[in-house]
């Protein structure tokens, strides 16, 4: 069945959104978006959230003591293994 992209309801369009956005298509040029203020607002919000996420949670360095703890745990495991 061929679906007319111009005649989609909001529910039908939003059901397609995950694939539309996920595939990298420019959802903003979809005919439904051109004519529907509600879905245009939704899309704008989702893009704002995705954009803001890139600024979230910078990559951080673990404390130096962590490697010492890991090494110690590895040594203990090895000792247990060799003791078997």
């Amino acid at each position, binding site marked *: 069945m061929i679906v007319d992209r111009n005649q989609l309801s909001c529910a039908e369009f939003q059901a397609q959104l995950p694939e539309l956005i996920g595939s990298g298509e420019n959802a903003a040029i979809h005919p439904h978006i051109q004519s529907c203020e509600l879905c245009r607002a939704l899309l704008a919000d989702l893009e704002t959230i*995705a954009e803001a996420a*890139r600024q979230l949670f910078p990559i951080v360095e673990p404390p130096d003591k962590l490697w010492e703890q890991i090494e110690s745990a590895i040594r203990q495991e090895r000792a247990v293994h060799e003791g078997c």
Partner: protein
Amino acid sequence: MLARAQAGDHSAFAQLYSLHKRRIYSLCLRMVGNIAEAEDLTQEAFLQLHRKIATFRGDSAFSTWRHRLAINVVLMQLRKKALNQISLDEAMDPAPEEGPGRSFGAPDLTLSGTIDRLALERAVGDLPAGYRLIFILHDVEGYEHNEIASMLECSIGNSKSQLHKARLKLRDALHIRPKQEAQ
């Protein structure tokens, strides 16, 4: 270096740790939001990596394999704590009530175009673990859907769908929260 680490060379494993510690620690911290817990999880992830590194056959990129190990450690911990009782399977196929509360946009509820970083971080922290994981992997860490699907052993379609639901939930949370706080 990888081959040497697989053969049991400790200094090679130390180099691997140096190369990958930031990504693993950051993932753990983003998922649990607690430094002490993130350190414990990072330690456990690297111990798992040490135990299993000899079994890595190169079927996927090492970074994908490494991240998958870390994800499993984090999800195991979340299950143990029962903070968000959601398995990886459930995360990929959540119950309907875990879906976003509202999907239709409304002009009076539109985000202003900027989002307060703390509000977003808090909203991400409130997401169910499965949604939070996909959102962090894709939107924060920049993994592609095919990589996420490989890490989580789900379909690419599932990854896209879960990410979409996570963003919708965040949208709901970011709209609703100020009203709750105003009460």
